[in-house]
């Protein structure tokens, strides 16, 4: 492996990608909404409703639907505190995974398909890089930023979520075991899933917009997890978190194995 060439491909892709508003906007907006706006909403809502003298009926109803395992975790907390723990620790977990997934996906869309659209791929194919180096460079240029954004996002979230937790629960909730596993094990797998699925999309898609739209379907599994947890089918305990990471890694590796077989310059050039 020629790491200097791989590094050059990464630098090239990132410099180019970061000038695409269609990429930069979601990379900034989604984490800000999830990690800053939502926790503040969690903090603000009970205060607003209790000061208005309303009861917590809706929240109680929501909490009554969660799985028995999760209910045990919330045992002994008053409704507002239980609600805060439920939202901050459990509800947001599948949403958190959307961030690495989306960041990797949208960067990969620009790096794999955008490059074709901009007609800059051909010159790259004539360089002495091997197909493996080319693919590695492109994968890393989407994967590493996804990790960076989720780490940064988590750091930010720890602050805003603790701010809300101290108010409502009386103690900080982060860091904790589930979220640590999420950040170091599941998020990298989610990023890998986001970008390996894009290799497949890129064989069909002609434009960045096409690829981006098709690619955004990868968040669907996270939405399913979110619904499953809200309706009490599952909850994000440590085992589920570990297993989710494992499944995402396995799917990603399978996609990578399949994608690697389609990623040959001799095929890419014929599809330009």
């Amino acid at each position, binding site marked *: 492996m*020629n790491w*200097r*060439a791989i*590094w*050059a*491909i990464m*630098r*090239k892709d990132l*410099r*180019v990608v970061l*000038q695409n508003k269609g990429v930069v906007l979601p990379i900034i907006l989604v984490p800000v909404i999830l990690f800053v706006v939502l926790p503040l909403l969690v903090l603000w809502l009970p205060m607003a409703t209790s000061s208005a003298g309303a009861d917590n009926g809706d929240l109680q109803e929501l909490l009554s639907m969660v799985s028995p395992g999760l209910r045990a975790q919330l045992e002994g907390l008053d409704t507002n505190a239980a609600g805060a723990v439920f939202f901050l620790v459990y509800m947001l977990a599948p949403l958190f995974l959307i961030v690495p997934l989306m960041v990797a996906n949208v960067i990969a869309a620009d790096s794999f398909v955008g490059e074709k659209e*901009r*007609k*800059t*791929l*051909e*010159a*790259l*194919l*004539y*360089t*002495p*890089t*091997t197909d493996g180096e080319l693919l590695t460079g492109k994968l890393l240029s989407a994967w590493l930023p996804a990790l960076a954004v989720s780490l940064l996002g988590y750091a930010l979230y720890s602050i805003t979520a603790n701010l809300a937790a101290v108010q409502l629960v009386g103690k900080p909730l982060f860091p904790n075991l589930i979220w640590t596993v999420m950040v170091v094990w599941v998020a990298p797998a989610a990023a890998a899933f986001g970008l390996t699925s894009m290799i497949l999309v890129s064989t069909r898609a002609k434009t960045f917009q096409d690829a981006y739209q098709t690619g955004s379907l990868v968040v669907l599994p996270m939405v399913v997890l979110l619904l499953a947890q809200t309706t009490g089918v599952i909850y994000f305990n440590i085992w589920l978190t570990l297993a989710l990471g494992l499944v995402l890694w396995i799917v990603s590796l399978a996609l990578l194995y399949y994608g690697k077989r389609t990623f040959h*310059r*001799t095929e890419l*050039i*014929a599809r330009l």
Partner: protein
Amino acid sequence: MSDPIIAASGLTRRFGDTLAVAELTLEVRRGEVFGFLGHNGAGKTTTVRLLNGVLTPSAGQARVLGLDPMADGPALRRQTGVLTETPSLDERLSARLNLSLYADLYGVPKGEVKPRVEALLKTFELAERADDKVGAFSKGMKQRLALARTVVHQPVLLFLDEPTAALDPVAARQVHEMILHTAREGRTVFMNTHNLVEAQRLCDRVAVMEHGRLVAIGSPHDLARRLVRNLTVEFELAPDSTAQALQVLQQAPGAASAGPRNGVIVVSGAERAAIPDLIALLVGAGVPIYQVAPQEPTLEDVYFALHSETEVKP
């Protein structure tokens, strides 16, 4: 002398039912500027791809710089530079960054990247705009930058795919100068073009492709000799004998047509072997001859001669 730098034998590439390149056999010598001529779709770009190991041949083989493009692609591409049909530049990046990234990709020694990039920016007259985004460049500037990028790793063999197709005459002339400059530095140049004047001006030898097949190869001069049978000859005669001369020439067996133009008589469609007879006839008729100037056939004549030949073939 030495081994050919490119040797293709029976090289073939199909796309579905299309034969893009059909049993191409040819040799390119070290140090020459080789023109690869053909209409749109003749198979020029496909050939360059095959010779650089970025496209798999359907049949046949090639050796370029002694290497098999399919087996030794990376090692081969380290020594070749390819100017693609579209400049293929990163328009969102500066000229300087476009060059230095490719210097890294081609493994230019780290310490040499900076001086080499600066020197190229200067040579290709881009130094003043080095930090501007390429998207704002004119076509001519883009093409110069693409050419600079093609030689950033000092390749011994250059492939240029229609280097002047999109340029105005001034920009095209600049690119020609640069091609001749790189050729003088000892590089071999393989140039795709359908610009015959360009080929005639720059190339030591040319190959003519038609529907994926090689139909002629040689120096422009040899090809003209060999393939263009009908010459155009200008006779400058004493002004008062024009009418008489016309009469003689129009009845001569070797000339297809003769007519006055700008004070001379132009005979076209003459066979090379018939010219001495025409002169003898005029002298015999007592016409004073000041000058006989056969017009050298151009590559264009060659091209159309070949074209009409292949059109007629079943």
